[in-house]
């Protein structure tokens, strides 16, 4: 099964205390499914993933909705809504 790099930014990274993880999501999993898998790890993961509606995601560096299938993507980033500019 393909490995997926997961990157964290802003308070997601701070709550988890890590910059990234590698996971092997089940076939057909969506971004939301991966978020649920991470939340099940408890601790900072559970805290960061507690309210998926507060999260935004990018698959292979393109913004996607949380119901998007992971497909063959290599990199999933999870972060709060952006606040640049």
């Amino acid at each position: 099964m393909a490995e997926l790099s997961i990157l964290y930014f802003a308070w997601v990274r701070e709550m988890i205390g890590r910059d990234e993880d590698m996971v092997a999501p089940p076939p057909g999993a969506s971004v939301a499914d991966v978020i649920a898998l991470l939340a099940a790890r408890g601790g900072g993961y559970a805290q960061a993933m507690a309210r998926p509606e507060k999260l935004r995601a990018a698959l292979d560096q393109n913004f996607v909705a949380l119901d998007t299938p992971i497909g063959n993507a290599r990199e999933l980033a999870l972060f709060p809504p952006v606040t640049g500019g």
Partner: protein
Amino acid sequence: MSAVVIGPDDFDAAAQCAALEAMGGGAVATFTGIVRGDNGLIALQLDHYPAMTKAQVERIVAQAQARWPLLGVRVIHRVGRLEPGARIVFVGTASRHRTAALESCAFLIDWLKSHAPFWKQEHFADGSTRWVEARVEDDARAAAWNDQATSGN
């Protein structure tokens, strides 16, 4: 000179303006964002998603170029620790047309706010920190550009 620069360094706004003015259009519009020292803020820390940031900003620039007749565009966005008074972001556009320069400049800063992977963390004098929350108005302003495109205005 690249149209898009993402990095920690300050920039020479005058040189940016001079380059835009030299492009032969009649109109140059700019926007500069600066760190405000409100409520005991001693610094902003700007986080970003390095592998994605530049490509995403270039995509936004390409959208502006497709939409308005622009002779030149410059976008500079700083990252890392920035103290009050420091420049965070610069957007400059050059066109033959005043409205194209003004509108594309406003479009670019609105879209950077809502579509570029940057996050601001506020650091205060008392040692506390706070991640800035996205503002609903920023999304609404960015979305309004889409509505305009759809309705042909």
